[in-house]
């Protein structure tokens, strides 16, 4: 199978538990929930073999971890929003794909490993996405972590490895990226009815990003990632990585049909549910400054090498 056909469509959605646990608290949460429900139906009708998730709320340190427990089961509670309730889950994981993804990542120079342990703490973002998008576990899933130290080249190569694995196995995937747009939350507890985007600046940037998504300009967003990180992302990690991974996994171009199903505040952060479907409606590709890396060679050890 041509690997451009391996990704049926991509989804960008937020990690917060409100649409799952408390959609009734705010019309915006309800809108987000309706968007998830809409995409749930599209996924179920898509003929997908797998739902592949990249979650920004699963940080890793030792390389890139890939969930490989065939039926992970637990009751998850969010660190901040524990008062909204518990999230019991039992998922159906495609362990063959997990192994293939690990192998593909290693073939491209990445350190990667599968994890398959009873009670492993699957992160809030993955639990929310899988619970809402695939509630009956009809389609097997796989989840990959976001390494906290990785930057652009490593993340791009990780995305390319996902394409390799899909291509090698001949599987059709729905790709899900779990991430906020602006991720600055209010630092105090709020009445959900009063929820809004934290600042006009965050809101304006979010709307600009949504414009790009609507136009199918995923590669352009990937190239803008460092600007986005500096402008509207709190500095928890080195970079804003989800669009790098999404672009690399979906083919690094601007040929998508984009649909923003919902954009709402989630305790001040920007939560958007977006669908990107490969198409021929390109807005045009550009020449960009940064290298398109195929193989990850690790840190360059600039300090150790001096002038060599």
């Amino acid at each position: 199978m041509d690997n451009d056909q391996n990704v049926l469509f991509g989804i960008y959605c937020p990690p917060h538990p409100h649409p799952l646990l408390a959609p009734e608290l705010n019309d915006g949460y309800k809108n987000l929930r309706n968007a998830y429900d809409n995409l749930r139906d599209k996924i179920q009708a898509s003929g997908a073999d797998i739902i592949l998730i990249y979650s920004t709320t699963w940080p890793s340190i030792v390389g890139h971890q890939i969930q490989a427990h065939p039926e992970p089961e637990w009751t998850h509670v969010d660190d901040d929003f524990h008062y909204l309730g518990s999230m019991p889950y039992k998922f159906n994981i495609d362990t063959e794909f997990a192994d293939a993804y690990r192998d593909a990542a290693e073939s491209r120079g990445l350190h990667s490993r599968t994890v398959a342990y009873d009670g492993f703490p699957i992160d809030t973002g993955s639990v929310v996405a899988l619970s809402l998008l695939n509630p009956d576990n009809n389609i097997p899933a796989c989840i990959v972590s976001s390494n906290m130290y990785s930057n652009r080249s490593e993340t791009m190569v990780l995305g390319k490895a996902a394409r390799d694995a899909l291509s090698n196995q001949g599987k059709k995937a729905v790709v899900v990226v779990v991430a906020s747009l602006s991720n600055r939350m209010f630092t105090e507890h709020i009445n959900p009815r009063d929820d809004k985007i934290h600042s006009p600046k965050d809101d304006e940037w979010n709307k600009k990003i949504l414009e790009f998504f609507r136009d199918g300009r995923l590669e352009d967003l990937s190239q803008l990632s460092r600007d986005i990180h500096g402008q509207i992302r709190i500095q928890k990690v080195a970079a804003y990585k989800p669009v790098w991974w999404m672009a690399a996994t979906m083919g690094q171009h601007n040929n998508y049909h984009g649909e923003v199903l919902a954009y709402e505040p989630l305790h001040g952060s920007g939560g958007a549910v977006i669908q990107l479907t490969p198409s021929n409606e390109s807005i045009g590709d550009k020449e960009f400054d940064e290298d398109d890396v195929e193989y990850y060679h690790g840190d360059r050890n600039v300090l150790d090498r001096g002038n060599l």
Partner: protein
Amino acid sequence: MKKGQVVLGCLAPHPPHLVYAENPEQNEPFSEGGWETLRWGYNRLARKLKKVDYDVMVIFTPHWATYIGTHFLGLPKFSSLSVDPIFPNIFRYKYDLDVDVELAEEMHKAASEAGIITKMMTNPDFRIDYGTITSCHMLNPEWDKPIITISSNRNAHYYSGEVMNEQAKALGEACLKAIEKSGKKVVLVSSHSLSHRHFVTESPLPEDMSREHIYNHSQYVWDMKMIKMMRDGKMKEVIDIMPEYTEQTIAETEAGGLSWMMAAMGLPDYPAEIYGYQSVIGTGNAVVAWDPNSKTREIVL
């Protein structure tokens, strides 16, 4: 009622490797040891704690990271399985612990009155973080005292290291008020490494000590500087340079634990007891204690 007091403060790093290397019955994976310099230091501090008269251990952990205020455990008992999300291969620990909810609520109230955003955590399905479990296990493997876990509010991410430092100090002062009001004898635990840059690969045998060393020399030099100041009783100076130290070494002090604990102990000007320093997967870790009682204070190393 007699005024409550802090009877000991402990800097207690929580790499799960230490529990793994100890092979307690609660942890499923089996190891051949490793990281003895830290573990033996911990073992000695645990023996000292056996001689300390205390009612409760209060622990501040980076691995319960909250962005909306500071949260406190608010149920009397938690029992479950803790699996480390980063190192699940070495840490799958069955825990069963008691919480001093009364004191937790007093701390929550005192912090709130001081203008700090707070929340009690009362969801019975909540899973205790591995930082709490590792530090508490290494300090008190019998788990025969109640604990209180305080989440780390990540002000460093939202604002700056300076704001984190100030808010953590305010929290420490508020907790001290609650402790004094309670009449209880309390051990404070600041659970974290010093320099905190990890290797991103792991050797096939995690406890292979031929592979263990600090991530780079600058981290080591900074860590030694901090330990010397602790040894010299210069904790006000340590807290003053905390934002710069944290930035330079990506230190786990970014969560605010040491600033919180030192503020609650009145910024000690007496020498700290140094029990050990060693790297774990490249990070710098020190086991250190502050004993306010000059009669029992020791020069350990």
